């Protein structure tokens, strides 16, 4: 799979690409459920999740979200 096709797939259906890449069940759409699945399968660590979840408090992120 080359980069161009990956880019096209991501543009068309990003969720499908991520689901196949990280072995996420297709019916799983809730973000918390997806994170829990990634934690259970060991694909991400608790520290990574904590860092990601605390990004909402980051002033730079808050500025970007406005």
């Amino acid at each position, binding site marked *: 799979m080359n980069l161009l096709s990956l880019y096209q797939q991501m543009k068309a259906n990003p969720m499908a690409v991520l689901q196949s890449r*990280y*072995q996420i069940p297709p019916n799983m759409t809730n973000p*918390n459920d997806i*994170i*829990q699945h990634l*934690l*259970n*399968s*060991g*694909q*991400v*660590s*608790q*520290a*990574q*999740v*904590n860092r990601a*979840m*605390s990004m909402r*408090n980051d002033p730079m992120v808050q500025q970007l979200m406005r």
Partner: protein
Amino acid sequence: MKYLSSIGSERRKIMAYNPYFPYYSQQYQPQQSQQIQSTGLISVRSIDEAMRYPVAPGNSVTFKDETAPYVYTKTMGFSQFDRPVFEKYRIIKEETEEETKEEVHHECGCKSLKSEVEQLKKRVKEIEDEFIEFISANESKSDGGASK
């Protein structure tokens, strides 16, 4: 990566291509004795947010409520099928030594003032009684003289 280099190349190949083996990342930790791992304090806006927070098996996360004086902990067992243990703690301010000393000092000051006032009252009463006795003694003397 250190772990990868320490195992044989054959085993590495098996681990790389075995579909039953979970996703192999640089963050992979070899299984050690099972101990609950704790992380730092996470800020949450409500107890619901803490209850919904994703926690990995064998981990414990501590939360600080931004809107109320509570701390929550969510602990996941080592099995994915274990229900998480959720605990809620209330934060109570403990008075410091300086604050207690100040209070005691303040109390002592009041107490000594009170006792002084009581003593003065007692003394005034004694003087009053003496005065009354003196007057009545004088009156009886003068009455006795007048009657003669």
